[in-house]
């Protein structure tokens, strides 16, 4: 089975990830997921491509830490975090977060907390290619 926390070039499958998440417990009643994907438009500009740079080893370590904290904080049965580092175009998947708990409230709250925290503490940077050129994204809309 693939690791619960990963940085990878290739796309991920939600079905596979959910199956792996469920394998941890038969008491899981609620699974919340978040998928972030590439948009063709950002802050008033057309975007044709998005690429990423990451401090890979630290990013994976921060994502593992984030997962452990979420499990403890929300009493999750399991959680998964996958981030792609590659070049994507509109509609492509970028990030996947999943939280599984006995009841839905914990799963939904933990999922939201993980994506919010990922954005502020995991060293990954996004570069948007627009008709006006390439721009590193530094704000969090």
């Amino acid at each position, binding site marked *: 089975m693939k690791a619960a926390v990963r940085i990878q070039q290739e796309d991920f499958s939600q079905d596979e990830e959910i199956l792996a998440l469920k394998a941890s417990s038969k008491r899981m009643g609620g699974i919340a997921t978040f998928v*972030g994907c590439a948009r063709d438009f950002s802050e008033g500009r057309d975007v044709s491509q998005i690429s*990423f*740079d*990451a*401090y890979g*080893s*630290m*990013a994976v*370590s*921060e994502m593992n830490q984030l997962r452990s904290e979420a499990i403890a904080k929300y009493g999750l049965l399991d959680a998964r975090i996958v*981030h792609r580092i590659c070049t994507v175009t509109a509609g492509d998947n*970028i*990030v996947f977060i999943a939280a599984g708990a006995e009841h839905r409230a914990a799963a939904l709250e933990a999922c939201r907390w993980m*994506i919010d925290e*990922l*954005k*502020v*503490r*995991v*060293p*990954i*940077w*996004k*570069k948007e290619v627009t008709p006006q050129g390439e721009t*590193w*994204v*530094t*704000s*969090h809309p």
Partner: protein
Amino acid sequence: MINVLFFGPVVERTGTNSLQVAYQSGMTLQHLRDELAAQYPHAFEIVCFSAVNEHHVRDLSMPLLDDSEVTFMAKFSGG
């Protein structure tokens, strides 16, 4: 030696993704930052975060050990 790494938007402004700085006894993260900021003022305009050996460090008075890996990073934009 202190190994310094740069990523993404910072590399665009430093022109390099890594460099080495001579270690000096008693050196803090602040000393290193000041030295590099003088050398790459444009890059350090966007530096928000520092990490030492892959851990976030917010207190710049932290003393550095020889052979540390230090990173000065712009605001993250993953996810």
